[in-house]
């Protein structure tokens, strides 16, 4: 199993102000770049950067290609992942995506991972005039054309439902041939299976338990073998999941350091994807961080229980409780929020993380992506957590990775499509 980092570039507003301090955005970008450079030197394998628009405090990462380009010049080995680029053409014209991804691949000496997605918040869809009912079709057509543009010389053009373009030679071409490894955002089980059928790596955003991961990994690889209709010129068989992260000398210290991270991550995610769908977000008119702090932790969990339709008090209001609790929301989306607010698999001492991650390794997960930068978690705590994790936890997983690669090779026996994958 390999390890990556995941960046939303979260930036809560100061508690007592209606907007950020002038240096705040600059600081968060510089800190994140410093963390990534450090992670690269420590041997982390991947960094994934989101593309979101207008989601104040939740994500200030609207131009990931710029951020990743900066990261590419500060690092040597770490893979630079779009997690993800929005490919409905109203967000990004396919030619512009192809040009940017190829350019990033060139300046990074072929280290790009190209994840794509469709987005689902009203703030983003409405901001760019993307029709919610057609966004998956737009994502598919946009991605299909981006891949052709990167691989075909010249690109033959298209008169599609959402993209119209004459024949052109889209340049530059990516360093990796025929194109960088392809991924798709998968927040539901269905999407993981769709990823397999389209030959895409699955970037799972559902905070899956090891048991769920095991079932999904097995089903995913079976579908890659038996029912793959590749959308690209090469497939990227891979299953990744994200998990909120903090590593410290003991469990209590890790929990304390992470406390203002994961729960805010879940709170702000829920705000933009659930609450704001009913009462639209007032642009520049809300302080989510203050709202978050005004609600006691037990009340956060109680509200989530209420929303999830599970018996109140079932979780004993204890967000420190781990995953796989007896009573959890049935809906995958609500369950993901629920889990993001809890301790999860990767917040704790090195020993806790070792045991927890071993279960994912046993499930044959390809990649665990750690969410360290979230909420008000301190930069220095993230840096020390990365160092401790790299020193105490990561080495044994790296040592065992060749066994995983062997397992994966067996899973892919008989697959006839070209494979471009960095796992």
């Amino acid at each position, binding site marked *: 199993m390999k390890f990556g980092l995941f960046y939303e570039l979260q930036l809560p507003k100061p508690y007592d102000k209606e907007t950020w301090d002038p240096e705040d955005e600059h600081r968060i970008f510089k800190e994140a770049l410093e963390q990534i450079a450090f992670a690269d030197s420590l041997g982390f394998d991947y960094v994934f950067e989101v593309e979101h628009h207008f989601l104040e405090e939740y994500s200030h990462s609207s131009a990931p290609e710029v951020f990743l380009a900066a990261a590419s010049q500060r690092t040597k080995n770490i893979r630079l992942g779009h997690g993800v680029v929005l490919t409905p053409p109203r967000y990004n014209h396919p030619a512009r995506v192809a040009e940017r991804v190829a350019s990033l691949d060139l300046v990074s000496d072929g280290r790009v991972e190209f994840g794509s997605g469709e987005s*689902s918040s009203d703030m983003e869809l409405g901001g760019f005039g993307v029709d*919610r*009912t*057609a*966004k*998956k*079709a737009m*994502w*598919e*057509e946009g991605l299909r054309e981006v891949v052709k543009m990167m691989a075909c010389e010249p690109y033959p053009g298209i008169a599609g*439902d959402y993209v119209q373009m004459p024949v052109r030679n889209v340049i530059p071409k990516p360093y990796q041939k025929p194109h960088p490894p392809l991924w798709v955002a998968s927040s*539901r*089980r*269905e*999407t993981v*299976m*769709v990823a397999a*059928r*389209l030959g895409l790596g699955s970037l799972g955003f559902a905070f899956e338990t090891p048991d769920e991961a095991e*079932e999904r990994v*097995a*089903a995913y690889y*079976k*579908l890659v073998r038996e029912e793959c*209709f590749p*959308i690209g010129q090469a497939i990227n068989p891979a299953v990744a999941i994200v998990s909120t992260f903090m590593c410290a000398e003991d469990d209590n210290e890790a929990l304390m350091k992470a406390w203002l991270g994961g729960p805010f991550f879940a709170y702000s995610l829920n705000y933009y994807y*659930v609450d704001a769908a009913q009462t639209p977000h007032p642009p520049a008119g809300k302080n989510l961080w203050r709202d978050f702090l005004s609600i006691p932790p037990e009340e956060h969990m109680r509200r989530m229980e*209420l*929303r*999830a*339709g*599970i018996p109140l008090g079932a979780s004993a209001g204890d967000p420190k409780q781990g995953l796989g609790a007896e009573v959890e*929301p*049935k*809906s*995958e*989306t*609500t369950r993901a929020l629920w889990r993001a607010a809890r301790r999860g698999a990767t917040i704790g001492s090195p020993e806790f993380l070792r045991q927890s991650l071993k279960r994912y390794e046993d499930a044959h997960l390809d990649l665990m992506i750690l969410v360290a930068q979230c909420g008000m978690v301190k930069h220095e705590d993230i840096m020390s957590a990365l160092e401790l994790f790299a020193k105490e936890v990561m080495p044994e997983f790296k040592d065992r990775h060749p066994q995983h690669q062997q397992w994966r090779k067996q899973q892919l026996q008989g697959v006839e499509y070209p494979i471009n994958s960095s796992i």
Partner: protein
Amino acid sequence: MSKPSDIKNPQLRALVTAAHDAVRRGDYTASVKHSTEAVRQLLMVRPDVFSAGPRAGTRYVFQPLVGVRVVTEGYAEPVVIFDREKFGIAEALTWYEYALENIVIGEPQA
């Protein structure tokens, strides 16, 4: 991993199998129609399988949002409403997986 042959009800199994076959021959719109009809028929025999309401924490709330919906509220029996006429492979596969998984889970009590 579920497969169409896991479905016991012959009508539902035939619909999901047809959805699968349609994907394989590249008729994605037909596949979506078969999958949504299968879910509609499941709701006929198991109206409780997806309880309505965005706060109920049920699968029904989170149907794939791809331009077609299986609706129960306001109708005497479940209906399929199409917002578009043409569907792509990703949409067809999404609805196929959704139908298959939910029927296998919901059917035993049907």
